[in-house]
Structure formats: C-alpha cells, structure tokens
C-alpha cells in the first residue's frame, strides 16, 4: 500500500510492500494525478479517498514511536505547528497553529538559502528575538542587520525565537518529542529551552501505518 504525508513544502511517501525507506519529494514536483491508499497532510485529500486528520496521524505516530504514557509531541512543519499531549495514556491536549504561528519552517529554509548559511555549524545564541510568526519575524532580522549585527547572528536569534515560540505553543513541556523536517536542523533543535528528542520527519507516516493496522 502507498502511504503519503502531503506537506506544504515536501511530500513523504512510503510503500509498505517494499523494504525501501520513505521517499521525500518536493511538493512542487509531485504528480498531480497521483493516487495513494491513505494520506494525511494539508494537501492530502485530493490524492486519496482515505484521508486521516493530521493531528490524528501525529498522535498515532507518537503512540507508535514513544514508549511513555505521558508525553508532548510537537510537529514543526513548513507552514504550521501542531502538538499532541498525552497524560497517563489518554489524549489530554492538542493544538494546531496554522495562521499566526505560521510559515516557520518555510521561512527558516528560505533564510538559510538566501544568506547562504549552514545551520549545522552555527552557534546557538544566548538571546532570541520575540517571534510569533515566521513572516512578521523577518523584520527583526532586517532591523538587527541595520544596527550592525551579523546576518548569521540575526538569523540564529530568529531561529531561536521560533523554537521558543513553538515550545510555548506546546505549553512549555519538560521534554519535547519533535517531529518534522526541522529535526534535521541542529540550530533549531538546540534552541529549545528543554530536552528535545528528535523523531524525524516521518512520524505522520508512522501514524498512517498505525491507522491502517487499526482498521484491519
């Protein structure tokens, strides 16, 4: 069966009958006539007749991958952030910020390319910008550069501001399990004010697999 998480910037596809790892395809390159057996992601409904809500997929993915009864799992995507919190094995809280906390992942990727930075080699700054939105937050970078701060330092403060905003959005947990493409960004992961366990960008695919198993 073909499982897919159709994200804003990247689509993740998994063929369950194959031993190959999941494929990552830029959303702009995806074949619009593609049909999959089960899908999630904000773009997913057009590609399948079996659609799973993103929060449900995230939660089920977390339940498959995390061996604790109480946890907070935060997914930082290109366009939005969302989290689920379990307490004693029961769903306790969740949130999905698609508007005013939006475009964080997309903006971070854009800035890395625009300023030709390498996030894997950048130091985590001591302070951060106060940021609630990727787009609005960019003005902080421009303002800081004008006052003599290096582009790299300004972007690092921006990234840390985004991490802190995401942490606050998830209600400041003691530990964060992180999902999404930003797991691969050490500057972002290291900017959280709490321990972070990175689960990678295929957590929602794991949730789709769990949904399939539930329906069997």
């Amino acid at each position, binding site marked *: 069966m073909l499982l897919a998480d159709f994200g804003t910037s990247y689509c993740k596809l998994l063929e369950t009958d194959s031993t190959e790892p999941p494929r990552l395809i830029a959303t702009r390159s995806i074949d619009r006539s593609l049909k999959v057996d089960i899908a999630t992601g904000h773009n997913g409904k057009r590609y399948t007749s079996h659609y799973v*809500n993103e*929060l449900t997929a995230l939660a089920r993915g977390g339940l498959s991958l995390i061996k604790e009864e109480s946890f907070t799992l935060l997914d930082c995507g290109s366009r939005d952030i969302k989290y689920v919190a379990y307490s004693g094995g029961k*769903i306790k809280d969740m949130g999905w910020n698609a508007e005013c906390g939006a475009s964080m992942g997309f903006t971070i990727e854009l800035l890395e390319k625009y300023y030709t930075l390498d996030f894997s080699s950048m130091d985590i700054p001591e302070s951060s910008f106060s940021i609630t939105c990727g787009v609005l937050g960019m003005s902080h970078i421009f303002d800081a550069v004008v006052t003599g701060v290096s582009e790299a330092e300004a972007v690092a403060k921006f990234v840390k501001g985004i991490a802190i905003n995401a942490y606050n959005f998830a209600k400041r947990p003691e530990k964060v399990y992180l999902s999404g493409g930003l797991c691969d960004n050490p500057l972002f992961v290291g900017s959280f004010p709490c321990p972070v366990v990175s689960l990678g960008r295929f957590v929602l695919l794991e949730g789709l697999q769990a949904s399939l198993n539930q329906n069997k």
Partner: protein
Amino acid sequence: MASSTIQRAGIVGIPPLSIMELLATPEFKIFDLDEPQGKIDIETASPFLPRVYCGILRTVIANSLAIRPDIIYIDTGSGKCDCAVHTATVLEDMLPDTRIVRTKNQDSIDFGTPLCKTRMNLLEKMAAITATVQNTAPYQELTSCKPTAGFWGVPPRDFSILNLFPDTTHIYGWARCMENKTPDNLDLELHYNPDIPTVFFAQSFCAKTALARHLAGKHPHGLYLDCDVTAGNSAKAKIQAFLELSNI
C-alpha cells in the same frame, strides 16, 4: 392593518421569564439577535465594535443594524457578560429609534435540561436549546441517553463544529443553564461529567475562555477549544482528532 401593530422585539442573552411571557403574544415578533439572522454581513458591526471582540456580540450589532427592532431586551446581568453591558450602550447610540431595555435575569426556577441529555444530532439539539428561550411553557419529558462525549460551553457562533460530535453527546456549561432558564447559575455552569471525553468551548475574546480552559485542565479527559466567528480547519481537526483518539 393588524400587521402594522406587530412590534419587532430583539433579545440578547436570556431576558427574564416575565419579559419572555410578555413577548410571547401576537403583538411581538421576536428576533434572537445572538444568532445569525440570515445572510447579514458581520463586518457591518465593525464601525461600532472592535473586530477583536466577541463574535456573538458583533452578530448582535450586525443583526440590529439590519433588522432595526422597535425594542431590544438585552440581558446585562452576570448571566450574560460585561461585554453585553457595553454593547447595550453602543446599541443605544447606534439605534436612537430603538428602545433598549437592560435586564438582569436572576430567575432561579429550574425548568430542567431534557434536551441536554437526550440522544439527538448535536447541532439540532443546540438549535432546540436556543429556541427554548422563546418558549415559556414547561418542557416535555425526553428520554436521557448514556453519554459518550460532552460539549461544555455556550452555543457557538458557528454551529458547524457541532456536526463533528456523536448524537450521544451531552451538553454542559452555559448552554445547559440556558435550557434550564437559569443563565446566572454558576453551580450548574461549573458542572461536567469527568467520566466522558469533553470539549470545553468558548467564543474567542469571551471572558468564559478562562473558565473553559480552567475546567478543561481539571477534567481528566478534557480539551479546551475557542473559535471566533467561523471555525477554521484547525479547530475542526482538533475536535475530530480528540474524539477519534478517545475512541469515539
């Protein structure tokens, strides 16, 4: 002509029973101004109330502008909210030809809550509850169902979120006070069932958001949710996921 003598009476919140008995005569046509009355653009309220304000009271202003009632009974007691106090002042200046009557509903006779506990499509159930405001007769008995989910809060501005719940959802919070005709009954408003997954809902920018979030935190299986004028995809996804993940 008899029709020319019919007065258009707007109501905001739940006026006292004595007022509703007065209005339940052929001389009055009642408009529940809290609810959308046809295709009235809520943005027409923006010159009179801030955009960042309770969606229900913005609806009141938009409805009042479109309907221009002869008289408006607006409850400004603690069974409604402080925002209604200020909205009454705005209405007075906005509609000089409309008589604005402030009420403070402290009715304490329990009419019962059969609708809140019966098995029915939740959207239809909430619509039936809001319609009880205009009904002054004692309620019919209805069979209670075993609840599988709970909805705590006020009737939402956007009823479409109610379609996501099962028919066996019980209603709690101010909507239950509404059916009971005791809008200023905090004990009843605070009541919830800790044994069923419950969504604690409030309109964005409403003071009840504090209570909804507080109770959701106390409830062993509660989810806090607030929405403004219309519920977006993320709000609907939260409800859907919460119910799915609670095995409902």
